């Protein structure tokens, strides 16, 4: 009696053409006499061959994309922006800000965590709400850019790099139920990302950018992650995307525990707006101490952020094969705030979530 393992082995050698004549004959005989075996064998062979062919075709498609990208890069014409296109951008940003202001009270509160009922606002930006008025403008912009996903953006959030080669982190509630997730990097290009791990309770999701050659910046991450909780009153700042451009905010740690005494969170005194979910909270020495997750709905300026410790716990729980090595050196601590921000901009990105 052949085990499933044997059948796959047999099918693989058969597909490779490395089965000696003797075994080949035996195989044909068995197939003729045992129809159940014949079906199983054929299915195995079919799956294996299909995977092989599909894989080869995928590699070929990648080669084509590569060639195309190389050609576009070398034959780049001078960049001229037609006037109307120029105004589209201005108009879109203006409309974005206007709508954002007018709708800033309509924050999304849907979340399946009971404790976060009405007092806790999640800060992903719901674009569906003003889709009618704004999406046309946004789409017009997007058509000018290459590699733009076809569907419409439903939510936006913020994310920041865990490693330079494409691992990043954001809130679980930002990517929850998404059909696809794209990040927009500093130069405006879109990159598809997929989830490699998450912790719903702590509201953390770790993503990886599909493109293997993607890099956030020139070198390794300039910041490190604070391994333990920072003291009450520590000054902190954040960079996030409540609009299409990166926005700076500052404040301080106002409590060592977060919403409802949650010890995995901090409570901060800092303004936060929809779209800033997943924004890094950084101390003056350039250590990431936390990530924004939500705000207090009843009082202005109270923001909750999940600590970098919870983040590191999740990273450590992922399979080793992901090979995430968090940066231990900090290249920001001797820089001025402006210089720190300049560096950080490369490693902070806007996250666009697509949903049917």
């Amino acid at each position, binding site marked *: 009696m052949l085990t499933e393992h044997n059948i796959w082995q047999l099918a693989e050698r058969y597909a490779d053409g490395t089965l000696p004549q003797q075994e080949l004959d035996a195989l044909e005989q068995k197939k003729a006499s045992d129809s159940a075996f014949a079906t199983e064998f054929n299915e195995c062979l079919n799956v294996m061959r299909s995977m092989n062919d*599909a894989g080869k075709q995928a590699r070929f498609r990648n*080669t*084509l994309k590569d060639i195309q990208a190389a050609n576009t890069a070398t034959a780049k014409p001078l960049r001229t922006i037609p006037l109307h296109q120029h105004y589209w951008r201005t108009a879109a940003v203006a409309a974005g800000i206007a709508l954002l202001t007018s709708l800033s009270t309509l924050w999304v509160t849907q979340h399946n965590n009971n404790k976060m009922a009405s007092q806790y606002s999640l800060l992903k930006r719901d674009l569906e709400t003003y889709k009618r008025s704004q999406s046309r403008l946004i789409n017009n912009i997007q058509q000018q850019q290459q590699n733009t996903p076809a569907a419409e953006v439903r939510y936006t959030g913020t994310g920041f790099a865990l490693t330079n080669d494409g691992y990043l982190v954001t809130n679980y509630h930002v990517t929850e139920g998404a059909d696809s997730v794209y990040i927009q990097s500093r130069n405006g290009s879109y990159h598809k990302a997929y989830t490699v791990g998450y912790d719903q309770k702590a509201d953390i999701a770790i993503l990886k950018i599909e493109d293997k050659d993607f890099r956030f910046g020139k070198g390794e991450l300039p910041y490190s992650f604070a391994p333990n909780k920072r003291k009450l009153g520590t000054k902190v700042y954040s960079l996030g995307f409540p609009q299409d451009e990166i926005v700076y905010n500052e404040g301080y740690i106002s409590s060592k525990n977060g919403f409802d005494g949650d010890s995995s969170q901090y409570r901060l005194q800092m303004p936060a707006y929809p779209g800033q979910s997943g924004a890094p909270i950084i101390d003056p020495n350039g250590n990431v101490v936390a990530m924004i997750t939500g705000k207090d709905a009843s009082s202005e300026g109270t923001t909750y952020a999940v600590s970098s410790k919870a983040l590191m716990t999740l990273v450590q729980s992922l*399979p080793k094969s992901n090979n995430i090595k968090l940066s231990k050196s900090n290249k920001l601590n001797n820089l001025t705030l402006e210089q720190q921000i300049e560096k950080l901009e490369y490693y902070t990105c806007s996250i666009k979530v697509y949903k049917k």
Partner: protein
Amino acid sequence: MDTEQLLLTSLAMGDRVATEQIYNQHYPVVTKWIQNNGGAEPDAADIYQEAMVVLYEKSQDESFRLSCRIGTYLFAVSKHLWYKKIARQQKSPGLLPDSAEYDDNRDWAYEDDINAHKERELYYSQLNTALEQLGEPCRSLLKAFYHEDKSMQDIATSFGYTNPENAKTQKYKCLGRLRKIFYNAGVK
């Protein structure tokens, strides 16, 4: 063996240099035609790449011999794909091919190739759906082996198996699960 057949044989093996040569040689004519017929540049590049894939799939059959020049084939297939795309967008009967310089009554001659291509794409997407339903590490492992062409040795190292033999056992298990999903989904 003439140059074109040699190029095709190298293309069939996924050779980068040959692919690049074919791609760049016919790119301007084809994409210019599409752009003259209402396509934007990215559309044109997409259609052209699809035609390259059709050619690649045809070249996988060892007995395959092209009855015309590579450029003619790519042009005809691209045109056909483009008309189909427009027809889909407009939901009206496809525009009749215009009588541009390349027209030689061959425009619809590759209907079979294109239909076969469509079917294959559908089949691959079903396979891919099944693959996406596999949990980790199976999905990544099979992708590493089949899509990225990694060796079992590399896979054993990066997935943390003690030796390639163990990784192989895991690969067979994953294939077994893939087969169950694929065939239970009613795909034959």
